[in-house]
């Protein structure tokens, strides 16, 4: 197993984004609504943070229309997974665990 190098990431760091990355790191993809329910924020707040993660190339956003309803799915990109893993290592280093 390759050791992850600790690296503080300002994009991942902000608590709602850290939570979003933490959830998406454990799955392949997750519905926007499911992420919103788990994180406990409004649609608009989550949209804002997802857009920042998307602009950083960390999250892939896909929209699919089924039965005239738009379903938005979020997934961490490989760059997002690497950034999250490095940030968690940095948190561990700072916390001394």
């Amino acid at each position, binding site marked *: 197993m390759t050791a992850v190098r600790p690296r503080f990431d300002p994009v991942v760091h902000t608590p709602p984004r850290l939570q979003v990355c933490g959830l998406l790191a454990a799955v*392949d993809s997750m519905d926007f609504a499911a992420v919103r329910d788990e994180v406990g924020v409004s649609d608009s707040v989550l949209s804002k943070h997802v857009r920042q993660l998307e602009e950083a190339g960390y999250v892939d956003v896909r929209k699919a229309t089924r039965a005239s309803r738009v379903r938005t799915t979020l997934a961490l990109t490989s760059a997002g997974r690497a950034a999250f893993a490095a940030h968690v290592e940095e948190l*561990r280093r700072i916390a001394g665990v």
Partner: protein
Amino acid sequence: MDPSTAAAQLAALRTDRAQLAARVVPPWWYDPCLGLVVFVLVAAISLRYAGWVYFAALAVGVGGLWALVAAYKRITGLWVSGLRPGRTRRVIRVWVIAYALVVTTALVADQEFGVRWAMVAAGAVLGFGVTFLGRWWTRVYVAELREGL
């Protein structure tokens, strides 16, 4: 950032994963239905000379698999690949070995000894097996999520 803030953020991430563990568990009927789909797909090989019936059986199996994936996504709001890295790979290794052994044995029985029901029996064994392997896979995944980062 001070050590206590970092520790608090790590603890929050662990809590989120533990909560996610409850969401990823499929409904009780998911694994038996997956077993049924595997049975149809494997047993269909015994119909390979039956023309359209073979393709109809394959279509039922593939359609069933698609419906199961769609149902899981709709119910849980997420998707996680069975081949994901982590301890669940053990379960996949057991599945691959069992599949190779059972299908090879059934194909030899069918082709070399003319046992025409061999693939149906193989489908039943693998369908039954995947029902339990599916539950095992979920247990391993849930334990991994609950253990934290």
